[in-house]
């Protein structure tokens, strides 16, 4: 795999780029199709990356701690997304630092005992998703835990928690003539300038490893769950918004970004039909949707 002095990732029409400030630092691309990493567009956020001894790094005030893969801290206006691995304890292996809404920031990569010749995947999980969640909330978008399928130019969103049937649904649609699965696990929704809601593929796929860098206008939302028969259940507005909210990746750290996301989902469910879909895995589940959507 080629190593690079700069890397970029475009998801949902937004581009996050990383540029090496240290000549020893080389990058590789992450998961998903190369089309996500093609670059070209002016970045919406640019991170200047360098090696740093992060065991000496002093985090500011803790804003949010997953006690797992990442922690968010704040020093003044600067937010630090620190990526953590259990074998390093409290020392992050990578920290992205930027002011909310700024177009530039920095990416500190722990030098540690690293072989500096080895290339780094700068936006490896969970950093890219965290930064995109933040960016999307400021640009009329949201990242949803969902499988997205495009049929005859119409975007069908199948959202669900883990084990609800997203991967199963993706595999059912994978070989349907005229259907394209944009992702079996993560979809970006955005309100575009044409006043329509669009569904975008992402590189963050699930077990079916389906990931396509394309988009389609959102035509219908189905909240997946396993059932004993295929059925469509209409949702009230409150149920639709709360169902989507509970299956989205949200900017919990920023109240104004949460407000924007809630407003986006509220308007979205007014514009796009949203139903609960208990289903039985099989071709019939596809046929029912084609008849309904």
């Amino acid at each position, binding site marked *: 795999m080629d190593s690079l002095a700069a890397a970029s990732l475009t998801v949902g029409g937004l581009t996050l780029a990383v540029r090496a400030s240290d000549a020893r630092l080389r990058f590789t691309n*992450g*998961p998903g199709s190369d089309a996500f990493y093609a670059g070209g567009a002016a970045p919406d956020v640019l991170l200047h990356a360098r090696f740093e001894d992060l065991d000496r790094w002093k985090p500011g005030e803790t804003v949010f701690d*997953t006690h797992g893969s*990442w922690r968010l801290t704040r020093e003044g206006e600067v937010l630090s997304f620190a990526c953590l691995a*259990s*074998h390093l304890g409290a020392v992050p292996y990578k920290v992205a630092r930027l002011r909310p809404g700024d177009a530039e920031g920095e990416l500190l990569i722990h030098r540690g005992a690293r072989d500096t010749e*080895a290339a780094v995947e700068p936006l490896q*999980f969970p950093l890219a998703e965290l930064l995109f969640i933040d960016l999307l909330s400021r640009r009329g978008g949201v990242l949803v835990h969902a499988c997205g399928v495009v049929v005859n130019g119409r975007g069908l969103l199948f959202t669900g928690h*883990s084990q609800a049937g997203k991967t199963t649904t993706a595999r059912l649609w994978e070989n349907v003539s005229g259907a394209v699965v944009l992702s079996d696990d993560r979809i970006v929704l955005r309100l575009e300038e044409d006043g329509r809601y669009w569904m975008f593929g992402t590189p963050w796929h699930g*077990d079916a490893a389906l990931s396509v860098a394309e988009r389609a206008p959102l035509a219908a939302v189905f909240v997946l769950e396993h059932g004993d028969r295929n059925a469509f259940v209409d949702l009230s507005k409150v149920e639709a918004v709360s169902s989507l909210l509970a299956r989205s990746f949200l900017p919990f750290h920023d109240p104004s970004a949460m407000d924007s996301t809630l407003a986006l989902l509220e308007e979205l469910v007014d514009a796009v039909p949203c139903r609960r879909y208990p289903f039985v895995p099989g071709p019939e589940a596809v046929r029912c949707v084609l008849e309904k959507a």
Partner: protein
Amino acid sequence: MAENASKETRRETKLPYARPVLRKVPLRPEEAVLGFCKSSNAAGPSGANCIPIGPCNTQGT
């Protein structure tokens, strides 16, 4: 006269009181905050394309 008619119309069009209903929405905090690696074929410290650090102990979802 007109004011009285307007009050009457408002009274007629007023929606009946509906008692607020509290609904619980099931959340999956560990999924919602990306607290765990998605899978071994996605990005993450355990991923096949993981270069910078060692094995992941946070497999989830």
